[in-house]
């Protein structure tokens, strides 16, 4: 046990990375957790709603409380957390090139690397989209829930997936007005329970509707929306002008793959999970020996699934480094998969389940 003294390096201290590091440390493996931000937690601290799932997924607990719990666990375990540390390269042989506080550069020889670098929100190009006042839904969410400032008074949300709808609700809670939530598709994307609580607060939803342009001189003053036909082409004569000072874009996320590509991970294209992502197997191993991918990096889902994927990689990495026996590894992996599977069921989960199954089927070829 513990023959290799090189640490596991986890990149990204969001829900997936924290859980991976916690599993490793619990098994007694040396682990270094790096994050470019000044605070750990990734995007968990802007999630102020109660999470779904069951008790074992911390259902009913608000996202930021789960974040606090994970941080407390990592503190108690004494995990080496390096903040303000950007990983800018992964060299062959798993040399992790890090830059601390934009001033000190060093390379850490890693026994394995777990990439938990998350995702970025997609943009949406329309005339006026660069105007001040147009921002991603996550940006507005960070402003109201983390920094506690309102970016504007009256908001249009473009995109009705869970992100758009939840941010709409949280903008209402923060004291803003939401003029409308629009959706290009003929049906709303988010959970009905989320849309229902926003609708009963008086926020209208418009399906089959797109944004034509944002208008204003030095910032958003109006948004012009219109109905679209089945080919998503705007229908002339259906334009409507909304007086808003903020437009939130909630049209999906794309895995952050910079480091995975630098490490040489083979990609796979899975549109349901955000586009290109590294191919991986059921232990979250990428195509590169010793490199794992977890959370949104391995396909955009939710914080709850990201945490379980982080655990999977942490458990297997602890085994690979010699800190966990095979039987224990298999047992913990199976339990974690049980929890993951239960999150990928139902009308919303099935698509993600099938997409993940496709990745794993391809990923197995390597393993």
């Amino acid at each position: 046990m513990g023959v290799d003294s090189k640490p596991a390096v986890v990149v990204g201290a969001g829900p997936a990375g924290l859980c991976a590091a916690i599993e490793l440390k619990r098994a007694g493996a040396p682990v270094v957790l790096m994050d470019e931000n000044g605070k750990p937690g990734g995007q968990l601290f802007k999630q102020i709603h109660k999470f779904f799932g069951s008790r074992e997924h911390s259902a009913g607990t608000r996202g930021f409380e789960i974040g606090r719990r994970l941080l407390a666990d990592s503190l108690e375990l004494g995990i080496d957390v390096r903040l303000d540390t950007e990983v800018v390269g992964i060299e062959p042989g798993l040399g992790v090139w890090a830059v601390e506080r934009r001033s000190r550069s060093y390379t850490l020889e890693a026994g394995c690397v777990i990439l938990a670098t998350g995702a970025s929100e997609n943009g949406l190009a329309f005339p006026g989209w660069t105007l001040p006042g147009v921002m991603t839904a996550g940006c507005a969410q960070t402003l109201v829930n983390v920094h506690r400032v309102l970016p504007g008074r009256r908001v249009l949300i473009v995109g009705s997936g869970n992100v758009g709808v939840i941010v709409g609700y949280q903008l209402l809670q923060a004291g803003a007005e939401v003029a409308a939530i629009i959706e290009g598709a003929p049906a709303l994307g988010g959970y009905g329970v989320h849309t229902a609580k926003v609708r009963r607060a008086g926020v209208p939803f418009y399906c089959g509707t797109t944004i034509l342009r944002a208008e204003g001189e030095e910032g958003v003053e109006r948004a012009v929306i219109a109905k679209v036909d089945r080919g998503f082409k705007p229908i002339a004569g259906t334009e409507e002008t909304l007086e808003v000072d903020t437009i939130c874009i909630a049209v999906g996320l794309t895995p952050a793959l910079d480091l995975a590509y630098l490490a040489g991970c083979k990609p796979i294209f899975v549109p349901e999970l955000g586009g290109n992502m590294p191919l991986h197997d059921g232990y979250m191993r990428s195509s590169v020996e010793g490199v794992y991918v977890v959370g949104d990096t391995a396909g955009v889902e939710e914080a709850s699934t990201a945490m379980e994927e982080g655990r999977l990689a942490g458990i297997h990495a602890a085994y690979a480094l010699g800190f966990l026996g095979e039987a224990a590894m298999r047992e913990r992996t199976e339990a974690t998969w049980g929890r993951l599977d239960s999150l990928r069921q139902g009308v919303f989960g099935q698509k993600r389940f099938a997409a993940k199954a496709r990745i794993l089927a391809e990923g197995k070829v390597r393993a």
Partner: protein
Amino acid sequence: MSGEASSGGRRIASHPILGEPEAAREVTIYLDGAAIAAKEGEPIMSALVAAGVGVFRHTKRGSPRRMFCGIGRCTDCVMTVDGIPGVRTCVTPVREGMLVERQEGAGSWKGGEGHGRR
């Protein structure tokens, strides 16, 4: 902020889920010479939004920009901070006496030696 369009930004006093704001020491930063009250620990972006600042910079073609992703990915929110252009204001915490300037295009380096690194 005389003569400037206000963005309608403001601080959230009490919140149904987050409760009352944590007490934070107030620091002063300067936007193009004008004093702005900021809270220790917050990024430059949120201090400017709270002060109702509607434009963070202009592109070389004169098009206004503010913030877009808010988490350090997109560089929409960059400004010149203590003489260094292109600083991401959404992930750079405020500091007492910080000099924040709107830049045009890529901006230019100001001053000589002795800047704080960031």
